[in-house]
């Protein structure tokens, strides 16, 4: 298996045919509507495993919609385009099958499930993904990961997300990421609402999972803040506006956004749809 670091390599196979060597998320012209209202207007995106891609953009530009659509939330209706991972058509799969394929979504505001303890939830998820561990090993790993995330041991027996503070929910999402070891982690604002210390714990947590994966996990990180990128250096930065990726670049692009905001994109794109944008 050729290990790849960049996104654009191709190798020439023995027959001479050109094939993509990387396991990657491949989104092509994706259009999505919510309750009949179009939100994504032809998203093109590639995230190879082993890379960190950052998705930025003003509120309402469609970042979370993309995340939920890739995971298969029933409310988000795909009206055009395609999305695949590792060559498999994601859009044909239910969310559980997508997760079993290696996708993971860290929720911006995960829902509480009263009565289901964090431990039982994680065991069910691991079992469903064919990653069940012997009880002792599971408890040891869980203890280790919770320690790294500075989560109190009492979280094991607490109902998942039930009564968790905003920061605790974010950490619990990263705990799940660490335990489930996906191949593609979509992190929807894992840094929102966190103080400096909590932000560092979360960022270090993601970094630890990345390092442990030894290049077998890709990250699509949705964020508004530059700060988390001080810990997680992105390979690519994409800017989303009005349901499209309007610019992509290296880490320096995040610096530009930090300095100048999204105004250049907003003013640049509005003339392309004058009838719509003036209403």
């Amino acid at each position, binding site marked *: 298996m050729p290990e790849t670091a960049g996104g654009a390599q191709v190798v020439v196979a023995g027959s001479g045919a050109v094939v993509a060597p990387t396991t990657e998320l491949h989104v092509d012209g994706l259009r999505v509507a919510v309750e009949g209202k179009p939100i994504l207007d032809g998203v093109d995106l590639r995230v190879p495993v082993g890379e960190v891609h950052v998705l930025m953009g003003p509120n309402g530009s469609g970042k979370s919609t993309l995340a939920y659509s890739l*995971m*298969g*939330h*029933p*409310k988000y209706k795909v009206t055009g385009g395609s999305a695949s991972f590792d060559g498999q058509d994601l859009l044909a799969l*239910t*969310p*559980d099958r*997508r*997760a*079993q394929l290696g996708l*993971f*979504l860290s*929720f911006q505001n*995960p*829902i509480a*499930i*009263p*009565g*289901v*303890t964090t*431990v*039982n*939830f994680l*065991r*069910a*998820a691991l*079992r*469903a*993904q064919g990653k069940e561990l012997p*009880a*002792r090993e*599971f*408890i040891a790993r869980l203890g280790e990961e919770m320690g790294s995330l500075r989560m109190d041991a009492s979280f094991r*027996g607490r*109902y998942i997300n039930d009564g968790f503070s905003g920061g605790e929910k974010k950490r619990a999402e990263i705990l*799940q990421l660490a335990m*489930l070891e996906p191949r593609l982690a979509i992190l929807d604002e894992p840094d929102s609402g966190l103080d400096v210390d909590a932000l560092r714990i979360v960022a270090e947590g993601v970094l630890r999972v990345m390092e442990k994966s030894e290049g077998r996990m890709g990250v699509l990180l949705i964020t508004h803040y530059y700060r988390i990128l001080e810990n997680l250096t992105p390979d690519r930065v994409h800017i989303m506006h009005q349901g499209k990726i309007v610019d992509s670049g290296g880490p320096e692009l995040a610096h530009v956004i930090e300095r100048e905001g999204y105004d250049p994109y907003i003013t640049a794109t509005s003339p392309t749809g004058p009838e719509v944008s003036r209403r």
Partner: protein
Amino acid sequence: MTEAATAAGAVSRESLDARLATSPGWLADRRNAAWDAFTAMPAPSSARDEDWRRTDIGRLHLDRFGPAGPAAPGLLELARSRHATALPGAALLVSEPAGTVTIDNAEALLAQGVIISSLEEAAERHPELVQRGLSGIGIDDSYFAALWNSLWLGGAFVYVPAGVQAMTPVWVSHLAAGADAAAFPATVVVLDGHASLTLVEDLVGPAADPAARVSVAVTALQLGDDARLDDIPVQQLPPATWHFALRRASCGPSAHYRLLGATLGARLQKSYWDVILDGRGAEADILAVCFADADQHLDHQSLQLHRGPDTRSNLLLKVAARDRAQSVYGGLIDVEPGAIHADGYVVNRNLLLSQGASASGVPRLEIKANDVRCGHGTTVGHVDDEERFYLMARGIPADEAERLVVRGYFADVLDRLPIESTRDWLVSLLDSEIGDRGPSRFGEAG
């Protein structure tokens, strides 16, 4: 009607005569009076009787059920294995529908002066205690109460003397009748002042037996001054059973009655849970879970009757219904004029898992005293799409996600059960009712 006149069914003059022949005088009088009341009463009607409005028993023909024979093969072993799994330290009383009662593991209780025996035997040997135990059950309280009063047999009797804290719980197993037969489960418990006891009442039958049966049960509980009773009723009768039950706890001053129950079985159930808070400061906590699926129709009715001042009651019934199952709940908090400072609460929650499942909950308050605190609530919900999506986004398939949510939904009731082995057993019963495909029971790790 001609059939009823000729066949020696379970509900017949012949059955009554057989019971009279073995009853002491006081009991024979009671049985006779109850039979007269029963035969004079019309069967409950969904058209006529308010609390039967949503439960139609028009297709029940009591005259078609025969007297109970010996217990079905394997049933005794099933009942014993449930006790051994859930609460092996408890004294075990098994009451068969034909009247045979066996008692095991009761030495510690007997040494404390606790009486544990068949109800029939107790009616001979301790008539005054049994009469006290039955004093809360009027012979003509209802159609089915009258029927039970005339025809019960076998049964369980427990008496805990004043000041005695029973060292072990008592587990009462009532075995279901055989195919096309009737059973009349009977449990009478008397706790004297300052006594305490944990009681499990397990109504059990062959799990998948499709034959019709009928079960008419009464559980009469008397709590003296400052007595404590933890009462754990489990109903898991076979799927074509008609089950009619009355469970009534009468509580003296400062007595504390706690029910933690599970309703799982029967095709149609009509079950009354009554607590009578007679004495000052008496308290009752009634917590129960119910899982209904297929064509089950499970009806719970409750009464929290506040008679004494400073009495407190709290009821929570959590139902999950799937397929075409129907849950019916009616509850009344009745505060009598003397019950000042009464505090009563009743909540019925329903979780519907299928389009075809339904639930109705009607809690009511009747307050005739001043300075009371009472409340009621009822909710009907579905498994939330966001909950389902969250679980599925972690790789958990839709049906397993639903099971997790249902287990979670019941957890706040089951977690209140202090005996771990019994709680684990109830969780496993619910798991198998919900349908667990996992390789192992889904318990806490470690």
